[in-house]
């Protein structure tokens, strides 16, 4: 599914949310909201950790500049990637599987389904 082109991400989100509310999917929307919330918390912790590593690398980088920076950066990249959305309840997973609009909303949030793109590359 996709929203007809020519709209900003905010408009697209508003359209999909309205459509889901029309279909009495407020429960799923609430679940999605909490899931995204927890994911953001996790993302933040990863970001902080990555920042800390970067800072540490910079401090040490005075002595070993190039060899240290590279692996730290890539590991941060991998860390960001490894954030998987944890749906908790199986019911929501099933609803998501069945509902294309819900999947669209998740995509609009910035998430991706494993296998949709060449994730194996990373």
């Amino acid at each position: 599914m996709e929203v007809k082109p020519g709209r900003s991400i905010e408009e697209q989100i508003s359209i999909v949310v309205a459509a889901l509310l029309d279909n009495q999917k407020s429960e799923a929307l609430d679940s999605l909201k909490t899931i995204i919330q927890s994911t953001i918390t996790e993302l933040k912790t990863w970001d902080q950790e990555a920042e800390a590593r970067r800072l540490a690398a910079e401090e040490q980088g005075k002595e070993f500049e190039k060899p240290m920076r590279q692996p730290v950066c890539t590991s941060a990249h991998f860390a960001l990637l490894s954030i998987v959305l944890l749906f908790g309840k199986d019911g929501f997973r099933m609803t998501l599987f069945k509902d294309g609009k819900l999947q669209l909303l998740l995509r609009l949030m910035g998430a991706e389904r494993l296998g949709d793109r060449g994730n194996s590359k990373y």
Partner: protein
Amino acid sequence: MSWLIPGYVSTEDVENNLRFLKRYIDEPPIFEDDESPSKLIRPRKVVRNDYSDHDSNVSSDGADSFDSNLDDPDDSDRPRRRIQRRSKKSKPKSKKRKRREMDDEELQAAREKKRLAELEKQAKIKSAAKIVDSDDDEDEEREFFERERELREKMARMAEEGELPNSGTKKKKPKAPSQSRKVIPQKEWTVSPLADPDSLDEETMSDEVGMHLDLKRKLSGYDTEHSDLDEDGERSDQEEIDRDVERLRSLTDVRMAKRRAEVNGNDDSVKSQLVKKRRIISINSDEDEV
């Protein structure tokens, strides 16, 4: 099926999107003209079965791709790009298919060629079998003509004997044929194998008949010319010749019957010719009896 936040999506983006989400859940948007939001959502048209293209896109755009794809208000160029990509993809594919079809055609042509060659081979085998048959026939014919020749020699011998009045004894008989065998038949054989079997047959038959007549004439001549010769010797000679003529007639009759059986049902004209010949022979035999 697991979902994840890709590396190029920043935490800020996700936070912003979550803010939008919360806002629209709390205060549902009202669309102008009572337009149903479901109508603004449509199934994605592009089925992506090639991941490499997206990989290259992701790697080239990096972190920007998310913004350019989703945050950009001029999102309308996205499908266009996809169409372009699709057309790019489709071109080499069609080429490939064409080539494959060509291969198929070639294959079919090769198959046809092979089949024709097989047929030709079989036809050759058939014709070869026929040739072998005809060879057998020729052998048979040669055998037949050989027998004919021997018979003719015998007749010539007898005729010679008939011409020589003093050699009319049984003892002298084997001496005469050595000469005739050497000269007469050899000449005939140089022509006969190349000639048409039917005409050859006729020729030999007429020869035979002629010889028959010749013999008769000679015999009658002999009768008139040498009437003053010894009665006993003449009679014995006459009896022998008569016996020979009788044998010859029976032989030719048998042979004719055989030939007719071979030819029977094949060709009416040949049949009629044979009947004619038979008539001639029968007339001949009548003369004999007289």
